[in-house]
């Protein structure tokens, strides 16, 4: 985990270092500031240091939580990101749960009856699901449920005035569409994977043994097949996290969810580099974190995998 975080930080920093542009560019064109002042400023902020030293300073600052100052929002980048992060995590988490809740039963059912009508329908829908770009599904859902039927709000509001149950109800109502868009996209890719992974397991000898011992079909599937078939699925869920973050950026943009994805886009459009770097770094860290969680889940699903 530590090496990959370091690797990510090197990639991000080298991008930043290779990028053209000088933070003191404006000063160069300003006749009121003499060149010596500019040179002194550059020296003070270490812009003339060798690359590895700048990387070291940057890394130390990032680790200490000093991520810079947002020019546009007039606040620390870390505060800004911490404000936005929970919404994104809730949306991503809910959509992953939805994806798994849809994909697991459908994939298992399809695999227990391969090439049946249900399998073919599920397969076709899965193809449609992951061929539909999230931004298009989002717009279509808005068109149907917000504009035609007027059931759901299409702008996510963080400042809901209602209290008690009404408060939660409003929150759920406005989260339905973003979560559905993201969850179905993920679920579609997962269905095919669950199916093939269950198909691999279901033909193994130990399943036949379990059946021949007279265990009911339902119990064979849930207790014996699914648990083993889940191991590769966990890998896929973890491997898909980078894509999920991409999807979250898009859905947050469409539904105006105030998460880190929409923060990233607005910071880019406003040329707010510290925020851009911070958000990219946070999403990279979260992806690594989810990979770690997947590794821990392996141990629980498959006791044969030991941690060194």
């Amino acid at each position, binding site marked *: 985990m530590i090496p990959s975080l370091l690797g990510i930080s090197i990639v991000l920093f080298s991008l930043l270092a290779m990028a053209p542009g000088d933070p003191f560019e404006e000063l160069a064109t300003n006749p009121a500031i003499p060149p010596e002042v500019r040179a002194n400023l550059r020296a003070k902020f270490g812009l003339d240091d060798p690359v590895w030293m700048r990387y070291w300073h940057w890394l130390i600052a990032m680790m200490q939580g000093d991520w810079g100052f947002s020019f546009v929002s007039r606040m620390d980048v870390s505060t800004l990101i911490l404000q936005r992060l929970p919404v994104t995590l809730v949306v991503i988490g809910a959509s992953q749960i939805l994806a798994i809740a849809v994909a697991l039963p459908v994939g298992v059912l399809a695999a227990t009856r391969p090439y049946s009508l249900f399998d073919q329908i599920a397969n076709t829908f899965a193809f449609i699901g992951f061929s539909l770009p999230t931004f298009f599904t989002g717009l279509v859902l808005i068109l149907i449920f917000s504009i035609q039927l007027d059931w759901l709000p299409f702008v996510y509001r963080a400042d809901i005035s209602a209290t008690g149950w009404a408060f939660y109800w409003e929150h759920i109502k406005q989260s339905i569409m973003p979560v559905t868009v993201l969850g179905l996209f993920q679920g579609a890719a997962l269905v095919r994977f669950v199916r093939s992974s269950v198909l691999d397991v279901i033909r193994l000898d130990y399943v036949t043994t379990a059946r021949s011992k007279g265990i009911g079909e339902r119990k064979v599937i849930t207790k014996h097949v699914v648990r083993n078939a889940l191991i590769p699925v966990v890998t896929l869920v973890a491997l898909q996290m980078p894509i999920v*973050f991409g999807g979250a950026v898009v859905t947050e943009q469409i539904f105006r969810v105030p998460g880190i994805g929409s923060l990233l886009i607005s910071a880019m459009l406003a040329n707010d580099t510290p925020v851009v770097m911070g958000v990219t770094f946070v999403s*990279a860290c979260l992806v690594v974190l989810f990979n770690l969680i997947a590794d821990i889940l392996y141990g629980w699903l498959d006791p044969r995998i030991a941690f060194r």
Partner: protein
Amino acid sequence: MALFSGIALALIVGAVLLGPLLWPVPINEIDFTAKLQGPSWKHPLGTDDLGQDLLARLIYGGRISIAVGVAAMIVAIVVGVLVGAIAGMASGRVDAALMWVTDLFLSLPQLPLLLLVIYLFRDSVKGVLGVEGGAFVLIVAVIGGTRWMSAARLVRAQFLSLREKEFVEAARALGASRVRQVVQHILPNALGPVIVVATIDIAAAIIAESTLSFLGLGFPSDVPTWGSVLRDAKDYLDIAPHWALFPGALIFITVLAINFIGDGLRDALDPRRVL
């Protein structure tokens, strides 16, 4: 299904390539008397908020989107095959290092990274290659540069098993150089699954390009691509739904067709997968 998709894809590609000849309407002719109109004989797919003809814009956008998809796929496959082949042939330390880099790229969040690269470099590339050409090169490079990993792992796995096969050993015994072993003997046998990945990569690249354009960070906003038309349309969803539905449906059908073709190719090229 693959055959049907092939026909659908051929229709779209043909329409996009020949479209400007058959439908010679300029993409940027502004006509405020005809703005936000639904489909009619004069404008088969309707018009946008400036009265520009959507059919002409979508034909032009399709050319860009499909060109980006194919070009980014080529970049991704070339990088992937190179990395995979080197890792598979070298083994040992080089292999471990290359695979570490591959895994690192796999765990980077793609879209934020794409956006970051474009955000940091768009101005300088624009200066060198012009507005449209710069955007094209940059987008193709970053999409290709973040999608080569699956091809690399695949090629490496293929190489690891193929290089121990008898026919390669025979070539080695006959004194074939390493390069010749790779180019003449191993690579052609490793290509089957790579073709499948390449097909699916086109679809993914088209989605990635549309996403970038949709977020307003792809091509400059006056160049219509499927994604940017959709972006312009999203604020007029209530009065002009056709404007958003046509480009969205085009992306969807193209990507779906390519995915089905990839699936068909997988069945055709990889007999082990057939249950």
